[in-house]
């Protein structure tokens, strides 16, 4: 899968998994921070994103420190998915 296509798919999954009612996938910028001032996600959302990676891409994140580096924005998530996906 091309990187651009993977980014589009991931954005759709983020909106669906987190039930972001007022956000369209195309509204999420690739380098927009997921937490804090960007998309404004919180700690419960980080669990949802970890589950998303596990279910959709077969990626298990066990170390919270590792998670902090991956769940920064769409770019960092896609880079990690491309490197570690098992499905």
């Amino acid at each position, binding site marked *: 899968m091309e990187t651009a296509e993977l980014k589009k798919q991931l954005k759709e999954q983020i909106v669906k998994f987190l*039930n972001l*009612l007022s956000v369209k996938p195309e509204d999420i910028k690739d380098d927009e921070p997921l937490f804090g001032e960007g998309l404004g996600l*919180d700690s*419960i959302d980080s669990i949802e994103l*970890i589950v998303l990676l596990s*279910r959709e891409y077969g990626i298990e994140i066990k170390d919270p420190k590792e998670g902090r580096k991956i769940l920064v924005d769409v770019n960092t998530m896609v880079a990690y998915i491309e490197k570690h996906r098992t499905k």
Partner: protein
Amino acid sequence: MFYIHKTTCISPQQTFSAVDIEHLNEPVNNKFQAVEPSYEGIPPGILRRMGKAVRLGVGAAMPLVHHSTQPPDGIIIGTSMGGLEDCIKFLNQVIEYNEGMLTPTNFVQSTSNAIAGQLGLLSKNKGYNITHVHRGFSFENAILDAAMLLKETPGTNYLIGGVDEISSYNYNIEYLGGWYKKEIFSSKDLYTPGSVASIAGEGAAMFLVNDQSTGAEAQLKAIHIFQTEDIATVGNQLRQFLEKNLPAGEKPDLLLSGENGDSRFLKYYTTCETLTGNDITIARFKHMMGEYPTVSSVAVWLACEIIKQNALPQHMLKSKSPDRDFKNILIYNNYKGLQHSMMLVSKAENQ
């Protein structure tokens, strides 16, 4: 028992903010879905995680919490099912993902006490917080709880309410159990004689209550609940209820009947109508709200509205007696022909 000071209701009708119960919204495919407001005041991050029952309950209650002069000493909610839709979503994930990693959101939001819990968290209310889950008596037990607390500690305030949602799971199970009609019915056809089962409904009604009459909208004078399938018992219990709670020789001005279009249970409602006599007005409400375990909370909300307006919409009338002010309203409801409740809602003494 206690005084009702402020009320809100989210229902299939226009009962929230700009109230208009003259206009009748019709059920769609035998389901009376609630008309949901925009839920201003609930942070979007929290709102997006809420299941429907939680949205309805919290959405109905928040205006009362915000506008009350002093925070309630307790939050007491009655719900039979809680957020069943999300509960089933969670359980389905166990199968769908082969017992793999699960997220807690659906589960946390689907428990029956999520409504009262979220209300406590959002309003930073650390007082008494409890949820009653007794099928058709859930809301009635919330009332009894508040009444007992007020007797124990006079001068306190409570937020009480009844909430239930239509979930695809409970609708299908109840439909297969013969509780919902097989043919499509409109509001005006609901009470067609000889037809069994009813139509589904959902909603949330909330009340701020205390023992102070000043500024009260209405008074909940008495409540009585019991389980029986025996018509004679229903008649006897009603007779005793009225004798005990109304001055000798007086009758209620209005019977607000929970008749639901199910001919199997019409006998109970007819018994009440016969006992109260043909000189009082009889009104029905399930052609507006549908049938669900905590619909009696909406009946109490309607009674408060009727007392406030001293009038009721034409479509609610089953029979009308000569002009009489609505000072005492008797609500009789039964759930599945077994759980019976009687409530007397009266004009507050200062009104």
